[in-house]
C-alpha cells in the first residue's frame, strides 16, 4: 500500500496526456513541454493549444529537476511543425453509438463459438491489457509513468478512454505508418527515382494518417497521381516502382484487392482463373503512366499528351520550359574539357526533373513471346476490367482510363476493396486475420467466420472508410481484451477465434520500445524535414530541390548561365575529390591519422563550396563517412556524452530510412525489406540474441540511463524503485516471488542488482512477445 501511495504522487502522468506540470503552489496543468531555454520553459496547454512561457524557478522542485535532466539528455525538443500546432492528429469521433458495433462483433464471435461448441478465453487483467493496448495501438510499450497512470485509475471506462487517447496520439501515426509502409512497399532508399520521391512520399503518408483521410479517397489519390513528388507527393506510389509499370499494377492489385495477377504477366495463371490476356487488358488502363520525364524525346513521343492537354499546372509549364532549355543545352560543346565540366554540372541541375510521373497516350501491346490463341504478339490491347460493370469514363484517352481504373478499384460495390483492408486491420489489431493468409484471397467465404468478415466489410463502408473509427470499434470489443491464444502454424483449423493471437513484436515495435526506454517522450520526436541527397542535390520534404526552385525563378537563359558558372568550379573540386577518395581507399585509418588532416580539411571546404553552388541558401551538412566511423566516435565519448549522443539520435522507426539496412536493429529483428507486400518476419535469429545479451545498449546503458531507471531515481523507497523499473520494462509489477528474490540484492548492491535484473528482463520472452 505504501508503494501505491508514493506512486500516486508521481507528477508525470503521460506524455500522451501531456506532462502534468506542478508549480510551487501545487497547482497542476496538463501541457506539452516544447523548450527549455534560459531557465524559461515553453509549454503548450493541452486543452486549447495555447503556447506560453513560464519561469522554471516557479515550478515544484521535483519538476525543475526532472525537466532539467530531460533537456540535458536531449528531449523532448518538439522541433517539427506539430509543436506549433500545424501537424495535429485529427481526433477520432468519440460517440457511444459507434461502440454498439463493438457489441455486435462480440455477439457474432459468440455465435461462432456456439457453433463450434467452444468458449473464448477469459478477459485479461489491466497489466496485460495495458501493454497490449500500447503495442497494438501505438506500437510501443508504455513508459512506467504511463503504466502507473493507467493502473491506478478506478474508472470502469478506463480501457475505452485509453483507446481514445492512444488513437489521438502521434504514436498512432507512427505505428500506422509502418503498416502502410509494409503494404505499399514504401522505400526511401533504392532506385534513384524511388529515393527522391520517397523523401516527399513517406511524410505525406504520415500526414494522410494524421488527417485520417478516408481509405478510398487515399487510394484514388495514389492511383491518379501525376507530377513531381515535391508538388504532389502521392506520385511516390508510382515512382516506387520506377521503370516497372507492370509490376506496379500487379502489386497494387494485390495490395488493394488481394488478387495475385503477377504470374499472368508472363503466362496464364497456373492455379487461378486469370489469363495472360486478362493481365494485359487490365494493365492497358494504367499503361499511360510514365515514371520518367525523358526530355530527349519530349516533342515526338511520350510527353506530347501532356503538352497537348492544355492544362496549366506546374508540371505543364515546367516541362515546356525544360524542353526549350534542353535544346539550348544540347548546343553547348565548345571544348572537350569544358564539356566534361559542363556535363557534370548539368546533371545536377537537369536530373531532378527526370523523376516525375506523367500520363501519355502510348498504347499497350502484347509481348513478343505471347503464345496464346486469343491474341498475337505486338497486338494493341484494349482496356478491359477483370470483373464488374464497365465504367462510364471515356476510355479513348489516358485520363479517362486511369480514372476508370481508380473508380473500379474503389467503387462502393467493390466487395474485395472493403474486405481486404478490414481483414488486414483486424490482423493488425488481433495478430491474425479473420481469413488467412491476408495477402491473396481467392474466396472470402473460406474465412474462419464469414459472417464476421462480412460484417467488418460493411461496417467499414458504413463508416465511409474512416479507418480510425473502425479501429476504435474493434479495439473496444471484448475480443480485444481476451487472453491471447497460440496459433499453431502446423495444425490447421485449431484457431476458432477464441481470442487474439500471441505474437512476437514486429521489428518496429521492438525498436520503438527500446526508443521508449532510452528517450523521454519519444512519440513527438520527429525530424522537422525528410532529406535525401542525390550526388550534390539536396532534397527536403519541405520544398522542391534547390535546382527546381532556381529553375522556376529564372528564365531558361539565366538558368543556363547559372549552370555554366557552376561548371567553372568543377575541375578544382574534382581534383581534390579524387585525391581524397584515393587516399581514403588506400589508408584504412584515414579518418583518424593526423597526417591526413590537411587533406580532410581541404576536402570539406571544397565540398562545402560545391554543395552551396548547387544548393544556394541551404545548410551544408558534411556527409557522415559511414556508420562504422560514427560508432567508433561514440565509443570514445565519456558515458554521459555517449548517453546524450544516443538519446539525441533516437527516433521512432517511422522516422528512419525505409527500410533500414547495415545490420541495424530493425533489420536484425526482421523489418520488411519493402520489396514484397508484408515482407516482415517475426522469426528469431542469432544476431537478435547476441544483441540483447551483449550489446552495450542492453547492458550498462539500460542499467544506468534508461527512462525507468531515471524515474526510479526519484523514488522514495527501494520497493518503489523495483516496482517502477518492472513497470517500465515489463509493464507489470514484480510478482511476490520476484520481489522476494530481488529486493535484498537491490538494497545491498543497488547498481549490481539493477544491471542484473534489467538485463534479465530484456532477455525474457515476455518482453518480446505480445500477450
Amino acid at each position, binding site marked *: 500500500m505504501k508503494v501505491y501511495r508514493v506512486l500516486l504522487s508521481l507528477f508525470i502522468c503521460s506524455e500522451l496526456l501531456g506532462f502534468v506540470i506542478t508549480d510551487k503552489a501545487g497547482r497542476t496543468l496538463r501541457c506539452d513541454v516544447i523548450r527549455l531555454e534560459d531557465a524559461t520553459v515553453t509549454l503548450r496547454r493541452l486543452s486549447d493549444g495555447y503556447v506560453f512561457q513560464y519561469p522554471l524557478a516557479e515550478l515544484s522542485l521535483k519538476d525543475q529537476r526532472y525537466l532539467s535532466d530531460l533537456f540535458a539528455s536531449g528531449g523532448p525538443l518538439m522541433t517539427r511543425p506539430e509543436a506549433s500546432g500545424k501537424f495535429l492528429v485529427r481526433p477520432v469521433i468519440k460517440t457511444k453509438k459507434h461502440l454498439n458495433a463493438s457489441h455486435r462483433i462480440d455477439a457474432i464471435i459468440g455465435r461462432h463459438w456456439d457453433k463450434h461448441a467452444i468458449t473464448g478465453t477469459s478477459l485479461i487483467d489491466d497489466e496485460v491489457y495495458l501493454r497490449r493496448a500500447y503495442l497494438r495501438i501505438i506500437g510501443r510499450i508504455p513508459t512506467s509513468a504511463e503504466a502507473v497512470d493507467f493502473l491506478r485509475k478506478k474508472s470502469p471506462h478506463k480501457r475505452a478512454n485509453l483507446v481514445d487517447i492512444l488513437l489521438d496520439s502521434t504514436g498512432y501515426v507512427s505505428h500506422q505508418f509502418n503498416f502502410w509502409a509494409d503494404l505499399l512497399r514504401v522505400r526511401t532508399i533504392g532506385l534513384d527515382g524511388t529515393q527522391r520521391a520517397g523523401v516527399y512520399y513517406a511524410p505525406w503518408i504520415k500526414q494522410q494518417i494524421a488527417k485520417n483521410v478516408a481509405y478510398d479517397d487515399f487510394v484514388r489519390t495514389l492511383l491518379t497521381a501525376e507530377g513531381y513528388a515535391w508538388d504532389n507527393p502521392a506520385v511516390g506510389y508510382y515512382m516506387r516502382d520506377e521503370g516497372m509499370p507492370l509490376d506496379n499494377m500487379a502489386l497494387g492489385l494485390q495490395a488493394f484487392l488481394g488478387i495475385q495477377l503477377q*504470374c499472368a504477366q508472363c503466362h496464364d495463371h497456373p492455379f487461378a482463373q486469370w489469363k495472360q490476356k486478362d493481365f494485359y487488358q487490365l494493365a492497358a488502363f494504367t499503361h499511360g503512366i510514365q515514371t520518367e520525364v525523358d526530355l530527349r524525346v519530349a516533342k515526338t513521343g511520350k510527353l506530347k499528351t501532356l503538352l497537348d492537354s492544355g492544362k496549366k499546372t506546374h508540371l505543364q509549364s515546367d516541362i515546356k520550359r525544360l524542353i526549350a532549355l534542353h535544346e539550348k543545352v544540347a548546343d553547348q560543346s565548345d571544348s572537350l574539357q569544358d564539356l566534361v565540366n559542363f556535363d557534370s554540372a548539368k546533371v545536377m541541375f537537369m536530373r531532378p526533373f527526370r523523376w516525375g510521373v506523367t500520363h501519355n497516350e502510348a498504347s499497350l501491346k502484347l509481348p513478343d513471346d505471347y503464345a496464346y490463341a486469343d491474341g498475337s504478339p505486338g497486338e494493341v490491347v484494349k482496356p478491359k476490367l477483370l470483373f464488374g460493370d464497365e465504367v462510364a469514363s471515356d476510355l479513348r484517352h489516358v485520363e479517362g482510363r486511369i480514372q476508370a481504373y481508380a473508380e473500379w478499384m474503389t467503387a462502393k460495390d467493390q466487395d474485395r476493396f472493403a474486405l481486404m483492408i478490414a481483414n488486414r486491420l483486424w490482423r493488425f489489431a488481433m495478430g491474425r486475420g479473420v481469413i488467412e493468409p491476408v495477402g491473396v484471397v481467392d474466396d472470402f467465404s473460406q474465412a474462419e467466420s464469414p459472417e464476421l468478415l462480412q460484417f467488418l466489410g460493411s461496417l467499414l463502408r458504413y463508416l465511409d472508410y474512416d479507418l480510425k473509427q473502425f479501429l476504435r470499434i474493434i479495439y473496444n470489443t471484448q475480443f480485444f481484451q481476451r487472453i491471447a491464444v*497460440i496459433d499453431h502454424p502446423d495444425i490447421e483449423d485449431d484457431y476458432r477465434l477464441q481470442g487474439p493471437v500471441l505474437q512476437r513484436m514486429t521489428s518496429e515495435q521492438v525498436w520503438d520500445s527500446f526508443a521508449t526506454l532510452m528517450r523521454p517522450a519519444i512519440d513527438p520526436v520527429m525530424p522537422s524535414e525528410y532529406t535525401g541527397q542525390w550526388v550534390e542535390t539536396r532534397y527536403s520534404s519541405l520544398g522542391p530541390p534547390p535546382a527546381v526552385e532556381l529553375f522556376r525563378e529564372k528564365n531558361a537563359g539565366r538558368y543556363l548561365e547559372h549552370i555554366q558558372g557552376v561548371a567553372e568550379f568543377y575541375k578544382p573540386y574534382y581534383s581534390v575529390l579524387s585525391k581524397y577518395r584515393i587516399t581514403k581507399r588506400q589508408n584504412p585509418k584515414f579518418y583518424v591519422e593526423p597526417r591526413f588532416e590537411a587533406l580532410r580539411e581541404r576536402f570539406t571546404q571544397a565540398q562545402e563550396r560545391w554543395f552551396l553552388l548547387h544548393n544556394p541558401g541551404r545548410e551544408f551538412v558534411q556527409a557522415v563517412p559511414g*556508420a562504422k566511423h560514427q560508432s567508433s566516435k561514440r565509443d570514445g565519448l565519456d558515458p554521459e556524452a555517449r548517453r546524450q549522443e544516443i538519446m539525441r539520435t533516437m527516433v521512432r522507426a517511422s522516422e528512419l530510412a525505409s527500410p533500414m539496412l547495415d545490420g541495424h536493429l530493425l533489420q536484425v529483428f526482421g523489418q520488411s525489406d519493402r520489396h514484397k507486400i508484408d515482407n516482415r518476419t517475426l*522469426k528469431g535469429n542469432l544476431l537478435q540474441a547476441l544483441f540483447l545479451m551483449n550489446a552495450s545498449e542492453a547492458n550498462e546503458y539500460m542499467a544506468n540511463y534508461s527512462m525507468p531507471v531515471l524515474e526510479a531515481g526519484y523514488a522514495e523507497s527501494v520497493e518503489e524503485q523495483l516496482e517502477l523499473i518492472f513497470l517500465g520494462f515489463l509493464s507489470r509489477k514484480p510478482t511476490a516471488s520476484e520481489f522476494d528474490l530481488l529486493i535484498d540484492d537491490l538494497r545491498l548492491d543497488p547498481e549490481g542488482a539493477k544491471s542484473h535484473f534489467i538485463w534479465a*528482463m530484456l532477455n525474457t520472452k515476455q518482453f518480446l512477445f505480445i500477450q
Partner: protein
Amino acid sequence: MYPELNQLDELSRRKFIQYTAKAFLGLGMSSGMNALIGAEKSPPIGSAKSVIYIYLDGGMSHIDTFDLKPDWKHQGPVDGIATNVTGLKFSAYLPLLARQADKLAIIRSMHSNQGAHEQGEYFLHTSYEPRGGDQHPGLGAWLNKLSGDTQSTLPGNIRIGDRNNLPGGCGFLDIKYDPLHLGNPFTGIPHARLHSELSAEDFKRRIELAKLMDLSFERQYASKALEAYTDVYKDAIKLMGSHDLQAFDLNQEPAKLQAAYGVEQSQFAASCLLARRLVEAGVKFVQLSSGGWDTHSNNHSIVESRCHQIDRPIATLLDDLDSRGLLDETLVVIGTEFGRAPVIDQNLGRNHHPQAFTCILAGGGIQGGQVYGATDERGHSVVDNLVTIPDFNATIAHALGLPVDQVFYSAGGRPFQVAGKGRPITALFG
C-alpha cells in the same frame, strides 16, 4: 520418332528419359538402366564445398586486364606480360596474378543483357532480372539451403565489405540464409563476445534470472514460437563460447603471411585473408568486394590502381589455399556485373559494356590455366562460346553439386531455379 528430343540439350534430354522411364516402368532409373538405354555419362561435378566470391564492383574493364587487345587503337598504355601458362598474357597491372594463372579459368566470353549497375549487379548475384515482387536468392543462400547443416557455429553465408545493399541475399528463402554483413574485416560478428563488464558467472546468473521471470509465461504460452527463441539463445550462447570465433582474429596468422596478403595496406587484403580463415572454419559462402571499377573517367590510371589493390591479395589467397590443400574444395570466383566499352570517351573513361566481358573461376574442380571463349579484335562482342550470367552461376552451382535443374517454389507459388535458366559449362572442369 521424337524429333523434339534431338533438339533438347543434353541435361533436359536426360531428364526427359528419366521421366519416361519412371512413367513407364514405375521406378527410378538405376545405374543399370543407365547403361541399358545408353544415356551419356554424367558430366563431372566439381569438388567444391565452399566459395570465396570476389566481386569487382562497378564493372571491370576486361580490355585492360584479362582480355588485352594490343592491336586495338583504344587499348591504352598497358602492356601484356607473360604468365606461368604458355601463350597466355595478362595485363602488366597484374604481375602477381600472372604467376598464378595456372590455377585460373579465364572466361572471356561473358555476356549480360543488363547495362545499368543496379540491374546488372542484381542479375549477376541472382541470375534473374529484378522484379517488383519476389526477391531472388543469391548463390550463398542457395548453397546453405541445399547443402545441409555444418558442424560450425558460424553463420554459413558471410559478406565482408563496404556495401551492404548488394542484391542476392536470402530472397524468398528463409531469412536464416541471408548473408551476415560485416562492414569491415576487423570487427567480427557484432556482440559475439560477452560484454566487457560482465563475468561468465554473472552471465549465467542473469540467464537463470531471465528463465525464472519467464516461468509462468512459458507455461501459459508454450509454443513453437517460444521454443524457437530458446533455440536461438542456445545457438548464440554456443557461438559466444565457440572456438570458431577465433576465425575472425587475423592476428593469429604469421606476420609473414599477413604481409604477403598486404593486410596492412588495404581492407581488401585483410578481407581475403579473413575469407580463407572463415572457409577453414566451415563457412560455406564468403563474398568480398573491391570497389571503384566504374571507370567513367581516367580509365587507365584508375584500372591500374584497382589492379594494384587486388593483385597481391588474390594471388596470395590462391597460393595460400593451394599450399594448404584447400583449393580443390574451395571455389574462388572473380565476378563483375559487366565489362567496359572498347572505346575511350571524352572523359578518358570507358562506358558500361555488358555485351562482352571477363569473369574468372579457380579451384573447386575447375581446370586451371585455361581460357574459355573469346571476343573480337576490339573486345566488343563475343565470337566464341558465349557464356551468359545464368550460365556462369550455373557453373558455380555445378561445381558445388547443386541441382541446377530442380525447380523450387516461392511462398507465392512461383517457380525458380538456382541459376535461373543457366546451363553449367562442364568443359571448364578438369
